[in-house]
């Protein structure tokens, strides 16, 4: 007898045992995550030639094989990364969404509502100190909530950065694990069969890694896996590299691999998702919140700046925002205003300053033209200093300070002064001659003007140095040149600019005052004729204006009489009112039948009253009134932060002006300056319902709502992306399970099969043994 039989039996026994072991392994690992079921691959033993017969030599256990699909495994890893990213994004965005609260929570939107509510209450009783305090507190509250929101967004960034840091640590731990497994696998598989359990472990480690970063891997013939993360090598047969997260002071994170300078761009996994939110969404949200705060600050300040404080017109104002030296020469005054480092941009336009003489109550309105692209800081200071009784300077920090001289006060209101004719150029007592037309006057350098006054002849020569452009001389320049001439002063004459026309007058009033224009080369440009005599009047009329201008844009209204006559007496006497385009607005009948002191309607919300007196059309009597719809069309007051409501430049710095908090009486609610006036308050209140161009026509409240719902949309998008990726992942997972998962019933059947094979094999061995014994007993 040959040993073949026993051998066959032995092989069969051993193979069955191996099968049972494999089955047992599968059953034991049925719940192990990432386990791939193993199956015993067996084949028939090598055929032997025996006694002329080709005999099978039993069974041969070839290898215990993992049932896996490597391609499926790679896809699973990749999808795990995608899902991990979306999941992390959704989580992070949900955190951000909480900052905006639910639909009824206390937040910026409701604080804004409360501010408008307090303004509405104040408008019913503008003099009430308690209600004013309420407005100031409500404003501070809005600032507080915006600062909180901004701070919360920053805090989120830090929180996410910390989380990234923690995740990076995990990645490094996993990389270490994979590296260890690599070595073990390589060692174990050196020339031998696959190390199934270790490979499963490594695959599971890779899956956990894929949850955190975008992973690509390839298994080398040696069995080691080469893992790349974000395109850079994390684990190689040589070892594992370290991922490094550097958190900046502003909460930004730089991830590098294998050294601080090797930046890696991670897109997948939880880290990728978090970084995406941190680098794209959060800065965008921050910018949006900041932009919202800026719009709020600017719009409120635009309205508040031109109103008059409850404590009365200003004596001194300081700007909130400083001019900054941009070209590094240590001097600020040479910077263009548009490029001087202001947080808000003024535009080209005009600013009107009203200067009050506190003794007489007279109000002078001065216009400062302003083009931020052309005017330097120094130029602006000069223009403001040119306003009589006003002084402008920069303080130590570069902020504009405007103050009035003792006995004067100023404001920027659009209210029309009640007594507009300060020099008496319309029927005043002085002998007064005005130019028939307005500036510019086409003078030439060296032009002369000869006048005859009570004290003798006076000749004035206009030098080119007094004018910016002598061919386009302004009335103000000519008046300044005349007033500076000592001959003119000695003759008791004075000149003024009234609405762009030049007015030449005697200083004294009464019918004894007179002067005559004798000649001179400037006569033609000025529109006067030689020999024109002007006499003063004993009966000076006075013009009083009332009402509030309702027009939509700023106007210069010029009043001119249509003939010579006496108010209330001369038949057909009328005062024509012309706008800046020269169109007739209305004609006021002040002739016979008009009772001096009665109000005449100008039709745009204003009314005029004329007192008894003589007016003259031959002397070109005129009155110029600035009817303002907006006294600061350049928004320079808001850009500088003069008489502002809010301070700050973004959501992190917004607050209420400190001296307003200290003294709510300074709240600017009136445009007339009277303590009960509330037009300014109504203007602020109108912001609640006014769509702003800078917000695409939305109101401030709507803009906040849009901000919150945009975040909501983002979160919703992330949620559905996460669900989609999740479904795909589940699908792949299911397919993997189908292939590599353990079905216990199946294993039990296998177990029965192997058990029976084992029984049969042992039975066979007994038979062989019996047969051998029988053979032996024969001997």
């Amino acid at each position, binding site marked *: 007898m040959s040993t073949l039989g026993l051998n066959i039996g032995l092989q069969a026994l051993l193979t069955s045992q191996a099968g049972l072991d494999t089955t047992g392994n599968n059953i034991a690992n049925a*719940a192990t995550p990432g386990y791939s079921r193993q199956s015993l691959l067996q084949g028939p033993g090598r055929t032997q030639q025996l006694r002329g017969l080709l005999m099978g030599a039993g069974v041969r256990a070839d290898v215990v094989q993992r049932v896996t699909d490597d391609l499926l495994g790679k896809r699973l890893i990749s999808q795990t990364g995608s899902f991990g990213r979306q999941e992390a994004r959704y989580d992070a965005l949900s955190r951000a*969404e909480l900052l905006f609260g639910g639909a009824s929570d206390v937040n910026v939107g409701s604080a804004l509502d409360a501010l408008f509510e307090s303004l509405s209450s104040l408008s019913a*009783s503008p003099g009430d100190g308690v209600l004013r305090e309420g407005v100031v507190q409500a404003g501070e509250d809005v600032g507080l909530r915006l600062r909180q929101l901004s701070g919360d967004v920053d805090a989120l960034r830090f929180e996410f950065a910390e989380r990234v840091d923690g995740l990076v640590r995990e990645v490094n731990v996993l990389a270490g694990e994979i590296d260890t497994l690599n070595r073990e696998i390589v060692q174990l598989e050196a020339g031998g069969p696959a190390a199934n359990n270790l490979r499963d472990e490594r695959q599971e480690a890779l899956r956990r890694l894929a949850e955190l970063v975008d992973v690509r891997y390839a298994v080398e013939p040696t069995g080691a896996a080469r893992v790349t993360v974000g395109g850079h090598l994390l684990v190689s047969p040589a070892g594992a590299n370290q991922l490094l997260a550097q958190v900046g002071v502003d909460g930004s994170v730089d991830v590098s691999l294998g050294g601080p300078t090797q930046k890696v761009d991670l897109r997948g996994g939880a880290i990728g998702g978090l970084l995406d939110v941190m680098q794209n969404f959060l800065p965008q949200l921050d910018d949006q919140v900041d932009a919202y705060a800026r719009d709020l600050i600017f719009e409120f300040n635009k309205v508040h700046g031109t109103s008059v404080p409850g404590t009365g017109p200003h004596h001194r104002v300081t700007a909130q925002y400083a001019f900054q030296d941009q070209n590094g020469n240590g001097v600020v005054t040479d910077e263009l205003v548009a490029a001087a480092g202001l947080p808000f941009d003024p535009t080209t336009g005009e600013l009107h300053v009203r200067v009050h003489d506190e003794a007489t109550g007279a109000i002078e309105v001065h216009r400062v033209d302003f083009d931020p692209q052309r005017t330097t800081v120094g130029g602006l200071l000069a223009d403001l200093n040119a306003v009589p009784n006003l002084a402008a300077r920069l303080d130590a920090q570069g902020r504009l300070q405007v103050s009035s001289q003792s006995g004067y006060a100023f404001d920027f209101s659009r209210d029309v002064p009640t007594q507009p004719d300060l020099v008496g150029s319309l029927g005043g007592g002085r002998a007064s001659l005005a130019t028939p037309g307005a500036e510019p006057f086409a003078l030439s350098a060296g032009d002369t003007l000869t006048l005859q006054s009570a004290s003798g002849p006076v000749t004035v020569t206009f030098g080119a140095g007094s004018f910016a452009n002598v061919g386009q001389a302004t009335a103000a320049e000519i008046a300044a040149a005349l007033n500076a001439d000592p001959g003119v002063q000695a003759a008791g004459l004075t000149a003024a600019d009234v609405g762009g026309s030049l007015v030449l007058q005697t200083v004294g009033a009464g019918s004894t005052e007179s002067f005559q224009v004798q000649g001179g080369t400037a006569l033609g440009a000025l529109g006067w004729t030689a020999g024109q005599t002007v006499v003063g009047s004993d009966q000076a009329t006075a013009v009083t204006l009332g009402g509030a201008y309702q027009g939509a844009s700023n106007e210069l209204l010029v009043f001119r009489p249509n003939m010579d006559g006496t108010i209330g007496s001369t038949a057909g006497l009328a005062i024509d009112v012309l706008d800046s385009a020269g169109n007739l607005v209305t004609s006021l009948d002040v002739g016979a039948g008009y*009772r001096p002191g009665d109000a005449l309607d100008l039709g745009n919300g204003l009314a005029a009253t004329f007192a008894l007196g003589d007016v003259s059309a031959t002397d070109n009597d005129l009155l110029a009134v600035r009817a303002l719809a907006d006294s600061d069309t350049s928004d320079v007051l808001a850009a500088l932060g003069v008489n502002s409501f809010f301070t700050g430049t973004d959501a992190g710095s917004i607050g209420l002006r400190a001296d307003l908090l200290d003294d709510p009486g300074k709240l600017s609610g009136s445009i007339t300056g*009277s303590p*009960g006036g509330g037009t300014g308050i109504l203007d602020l209140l109108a912001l609640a319902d006014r769509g702003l161009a800078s917000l695409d026509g939305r109101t401030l409240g*709507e803009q906040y*709502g849009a901000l919150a719902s945009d975040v909501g949309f983002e979160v919703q998008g992330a949620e559905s992306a996460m669900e989609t990726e999740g479904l795909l992942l589940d699908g792949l997972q299911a397919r993997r399970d189908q292939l590599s*998962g353990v079905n216990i*019933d199946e294993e039990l059947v296998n177990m029965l099969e192997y058990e029976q094979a084992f029984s049969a094999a042992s039975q066979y061995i007994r038979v062989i043994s019996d047969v051998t014994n029988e053979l032996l007993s024969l001997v």
Partner: protein
Amino acid sequence: MTIRPTQSSIFNLVRMGLLEGQRSSVRAQEQLATGRRLLRPSDDPVDFAAAASFQRQQARGERFASAVNDARTILDAAAGSAQGVSEQVTRARELLLSGLNGTLNDSDRASIAAEIDEIRQRVLEAANQQLGDQYLFAGTGGVRPFADGAAVRYAGNDESLRLTVGVDSQVDATVPGDRIFAARDPGATVFAGSTGAASGTSPDQGSGYVDLVLRHDATTGTLGSGLALVGAGDTILGAHTVTIDAAAGTAQLGNGVPVALPDPTDPSAADFTLVDESGAELHLDFTAYDGTSSTSAVFADGSMSIDGSTFVPIDFASADQQLTDPSTGTVLNVDARGIHRAGTELVQFGGTVNLFDTLQGIADDLRNADGLPSDQVQARLRERLVELDRNHDHVLRGLGVLGARSARMTGLEERLLDSNLQLEGLISERRDADVSQVVLDMAQAQQALETTQASGVRLLQTSLLNFLR
């Protein structure tokens, strides 16, 4: 490839099913507990945005409602005041008409004057009424609008307290006091006529009343019948005639009542007063009366003033003599040709006298401190009546405006309440959970959960192990 269920897939399946079932239950419970369908913006961003927008509108509606209420309170208070004033003025008118009755004596008139003073005080108080700290009729001036005095001036301004009661909709909650109590209408200068002074042709400038004081300076003239001028106590102005009728034994000044000639030996004859038809006096010395009849012409010069301190001589030939008071800017042109006696002429700038000055004037006229004859008093009272009626018209008009605005506020309030309610409904629709729906959802979720649990257990427990011995 056929589907091969594995242990892990079976367990996962049951696990997922259970989790999902629980999630639905929890969500339904959350909605029930908070009453809200939308808990976070991401639940339904579109509806969330709409709900947030509605909330802004709701806040705005509440703001408007509160402003409307404030406006109405102020308007009603002012209307109440104005109503009281109107009643007082009506009573004053009755008193004035009774004062015009010629049968009353001085003490009757004095008591009527006292009552009119009372009325004036009450009207003044009503005009100065405050609501809280705010004056109802001072515009936005914040100061007492009408200070008591000889001539009451309006110290407030022309601005109204304006409230925002709707989008682009505002209401003036006050009417400036000068429009109700001191309104200015077109009119002419009116002279009461007691001294003969009349309005000149040039335009006058001024407001309210002016007392034109005409003063006698000197009398000149040659008298017949041996009479002489005393030179003191005369109140005639201009040219007058003295008629002595020796036959009837009377002396007559102008068209006055002839009086009996005095006895020259009587000590009173040295200063005998003749009174003309307007009550002007001429003092004559009759001691040298020679008993003849004569008609003599005398001329009395005088001067006049409107401020009581600066007097200008009367130009009796002038039809248009101008008097000015620079401190008030008053310019008065007087036709002096008809001036015949000294005294205080009431000059009224028609349409400019305010209610208080009118009442003051009525009381003064009734008291008649100057001792004017009753027909002149009545002339003055009739002029006052014109101004009183004019002022009453303005009070009634102001009352009408206040009342109309108040009614508008009431209507607005109702509309705002309605639209607020509607908004509430809209918000609730979007944001709140429909309780019955949620309860249904919850019941469904519960049921699904239980089914999953039951079937899951069944599936999990089925195993070959149960059957192997």
